[in-house]
């Protein structure tokens, strides 16, 4: 497969980052809509769209650059106050970001998705119509404030707009005149700006029309502020003079709306039709494999490498001393010294390992932002009222895990919205607030990260779960009577389980919670349910901080070595062959009054078996049941680095990867849960 050119990869990485920032900013924009919109935020978004346009045009990605261009135009219009910031606009922006992401994915993989191009075109057209917007109010408030026409002539369109906004707010306009020495005017101007900023808005900075003497330069800052002139003067402490610009009675002009109420709205409402949706049902994983690393972390690594080099030269010197003729080495002293170096080496290697792992960590906010964007759309489409709360985005996880997490989390959130929370009316009838809550939060707990996806909806109905599980033949009625509530709830993780009879638009696409569980298992993570009737459901995901290095138990079966990740092992017992019993000719063992299936690893893997007197049994928990996996011997614990198997071998159930031990032979890493699950499916009769 030809590697994409490096420049393209760089572009994709950069564009992805821009899109991420854009997404975040648009959400902030949406939140800040009720109050005053920070012009800096708008400008930031505008600039990001602009650079995206430029970048994609440079790479000849026409569709991408065209759409980015339209987005930029609309944002420019927004920035200049030509179009109002309303739902339709935000929706279009969010949708554009999605399409831009999809287009970028196309570019990255050099593929084309049918329908995407036309969707982009349609969106671009919609944005174009929006961007033109209704023409600004005929009455220009600026005509009323008696601004020196000479000054007004030099204002840019944007500055005029800001000025108009300020006038509309009814604040005073001042001309702040500052005279600075030519030698340090830039610093002092910045300082002045910083002082003024908290009190209002510096609309424009103009070099003064009446310059000072030869060694100094004067500036007129057009400043809008609600603070009286005297107060401003005292704050800036004589750095400049303040003069009121507006007429004495600068009462806010008759509040003619700056834009006519859109009586004939532009055809833009996001009545997203079905075919359009399909395009967006894609993974939330990022396109780029890049991790941004703080330079200080790299510096730290570099330092460690430096110290390692020092140890190497020490070792070299030690080796040399033994080789020199005529020098008798005291074996004991030499050995001690060698040991000291070995210890130093070990310490430094530990630090290096830790440093490299740190560099792989990225904050969860990367995924949370994307999820928030998606949820915003889904909530609007669902007709439910939902407050989406996100917390703990600053928790850091291995980049690999963060990427793999996005799809399971998306699924859980969709479930919460679709199956969890009720419609507003139904909530009111139950005496709950009309607006439901869906929470997504993360926190670190020791070596693990706990992520919770919760809702305050109806909770899970275990009677219904039991009924469905029996209907689908997943369990027998008899079995369910012995189950506790928790076990019943866990049935939803079985493949082929879905309680909703109708296939919903949001979450019922044939994949269920079993996929979420499998994905998590691949990350050595666990999932648990806490559900209370009428109070809501919370899914609790527990994940290791990093995937790169895990602790594993090395076991041997028929002379072959396998690695079993320790986090999947509940306990290890030793049983005598004589204590084995059979039920319907299947072997079982008894562990503390519980009867567990006894499964021989050698037999599962069709390896030649030899009779043993004693077996080591690894107890593995899987949903509501426990199993004993028998191996011939235990070889101890190791820290292992799991390498994924190449494409052709990826889909063997029960094997999650391979690792190398000292002798460089590949050792398979078992995914015991998946192995058991695979064995216990009715169709497989291996045991």
């Amino acid at each position, binding site marked *: 497969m030809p590697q994409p050119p490096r420049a393209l990869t760089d572009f994709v990485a950069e564009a992805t980052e821009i899109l991420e920032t854009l997404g975040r900013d648009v959400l902030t924009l949406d939140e800040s809509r009720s109050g005053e919109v920070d012009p800096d935020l708008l400008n930031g978004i505008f600039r990001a769209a602009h650079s995206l346009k430029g970048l994609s045009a440079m790479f000849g990605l026409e569709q991408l650059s065209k759409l980015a261009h339209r987005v930029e135009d609309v944002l420019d219009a927004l920035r200049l106050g030509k179009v109002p910031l309303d739902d339709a606009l935000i929706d279009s922006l969010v949708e554009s970001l999605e399409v831009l992401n999809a287009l970028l994915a196309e570019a990255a993989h050099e593929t084309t998705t049918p329908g995407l191009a036309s969707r982009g075109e349609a969106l671009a057209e919609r944005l174009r119509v929006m961007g033109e917007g209704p023409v600004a109010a005929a009455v220009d408030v600026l005509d009323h404030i008696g601004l020196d026409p000479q000054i007004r002539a030099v204002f840019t369109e944007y500055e005029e707009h800001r000025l108009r906004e300020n006038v509309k707010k009814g604040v005073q306009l001042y001309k702040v005149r500052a005279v600075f020495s030519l030698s340090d005017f830039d610093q002092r101007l910045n300082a002045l700006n910083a002082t003024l900023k908290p009190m209002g808005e510096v609309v424009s900075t103009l070099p003064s029309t009446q310059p000072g003497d030869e060694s100094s330069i004067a500036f007129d800052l057009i400043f809008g502020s609600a603070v009286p002139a005297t107060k401003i003067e005292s704050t800036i402490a004589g750095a400049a003079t303040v003069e009121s610009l507006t007429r004495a009675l600068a009462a806010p002009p008759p509040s003619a709306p700056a834009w006519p109420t859109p009586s004939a709205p532009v055809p833009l409402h996001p009545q997203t039709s079905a075919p359009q949706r399909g395009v967006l049902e894609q993974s939330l994983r990022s396109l780029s494999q890049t991790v941004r690393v703080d330079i200080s972390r790299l510096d730290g690594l570099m330092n460690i490498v430096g110290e390692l080099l020092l140890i190497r030269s020490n070792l070299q010197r030690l080796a040399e001393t033994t080789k020199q003729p005529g020098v008798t080495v005291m074996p004991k002293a030499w050995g001690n010294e060698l040991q000291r170096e070995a210890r130093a080496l070990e310490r430094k290697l530990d630090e290096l390992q830790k440093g490299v792992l740190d560099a792989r960590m990225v904050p969860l906010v990367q995924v949370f932002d994307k999820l928030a964007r998606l949820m915003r759309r889904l909530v609007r489409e669902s007709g439910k009222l939902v407050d989406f709360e996100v917390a703990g985005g600053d928790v850091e996880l291995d980049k690999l895990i963060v990427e793999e997490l996005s799809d399971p989390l998306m699924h859980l959130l969709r479930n919460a919205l679709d199956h969890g929370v009720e419609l507003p009316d139904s909530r009111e009838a139950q005496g709950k607030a009309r607006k439901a809550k869906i929470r997504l939060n993360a926190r670190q707990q020791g070596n693990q990260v706990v992520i919770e996806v919760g809702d305050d909806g109806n909770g899970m109905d275990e009677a219904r779960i039991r009924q469905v599980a029996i209907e689908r033949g997943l369990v027998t009625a008899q079995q369910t009577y012995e189950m506790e509530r928790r076990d019943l709830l866990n049935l939803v993780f079985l493949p082929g389980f879905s309680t909703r009879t109708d296939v919903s638009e949001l979450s019922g696409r044939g994949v269920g919670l079993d996929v979420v569980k499998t994905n998590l298992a691949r990350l050595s993570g666990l999932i648990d349910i806490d559900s209370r009737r009428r109070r809501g459901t919370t899914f609790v995901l527990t994940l290791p901080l990093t995937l790169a290095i895990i602790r594993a138990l090395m076991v041997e079966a028929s002379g*072959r070595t396998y690695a079993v990740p320790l986090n999947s092992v509940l306990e290890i017992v030793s049983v005598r062959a004589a204590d084995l019993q059979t039920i319907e000719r299947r072997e079982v063992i008894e562990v503390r009054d519980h009867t567990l299936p006894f499964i021989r690893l050698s037999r599962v893997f069709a390896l030649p078996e030899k009779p043993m007197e004693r077996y080591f049994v690894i107890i593995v928990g899987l949903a509501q049941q426990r199993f004993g996996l028998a191996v011939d011997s235990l070889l101890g614990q190791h820290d292992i680095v799991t390498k994924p198997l190449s494409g052709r071998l990826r889909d063997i159930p029960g094997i999650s990867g391979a690792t190398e031990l000292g002798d460089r032979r*590949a050792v398979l890493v078992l995914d015991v849960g998946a192995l058991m699950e695979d064995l216990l499916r009715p169709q497989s009769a291996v045991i």
Partner: protein
Amino acid sequence: MSRFQEQLNRFFYDADEQVGPFLDLAPEIDASNLALPQETPEDFLAFSLEGEIYAVPISQVREILKVPPLTEVPRAAGNILGLMNVRGDMLPVYDLKRRLQLVDVAPVVRSAADVPRGARVVLVHDAQGDAGIFVDQIEGVVKLVLSRLEVAPNLGLERNCIAGLGRKGDALFILIDLGLALA
């Protein structure tokens, strides 16, 4: 070819490379050859399996390795001999003999001790990633002209993964379609 590459090519296009008009002036070139442009032979890596000589395009070969220790992969497809560790990459090693129906039972290879001295693993790469092929002996590199390859006769084999036959003197080289052979 990506659009990006096209742009690069266009950018680096050099008119001097068009030598067409000058060919007429060159005395050695004989007219019949000009009409049918000479096809450059391609390099193939030849190796033997159970006494027959097979070949794969050298462009698909990454390296030739001594047989490393192999780890069996339980529950994997039957033509996978095992997993090898190549500088930290865990790659599958395939047995072609069973696929080509040269033998009925795949050889058991767990380490170099199980195989004859000449045996090697040829590391190839295709769209699905890298993989090793276990071979009895490396025969060397052979140049074959693509247009002169024969189509393999129908010998009643079920799934044919033979791309064609090449001849060089008396030797017969059986070309393997790797994508099919490793499927």
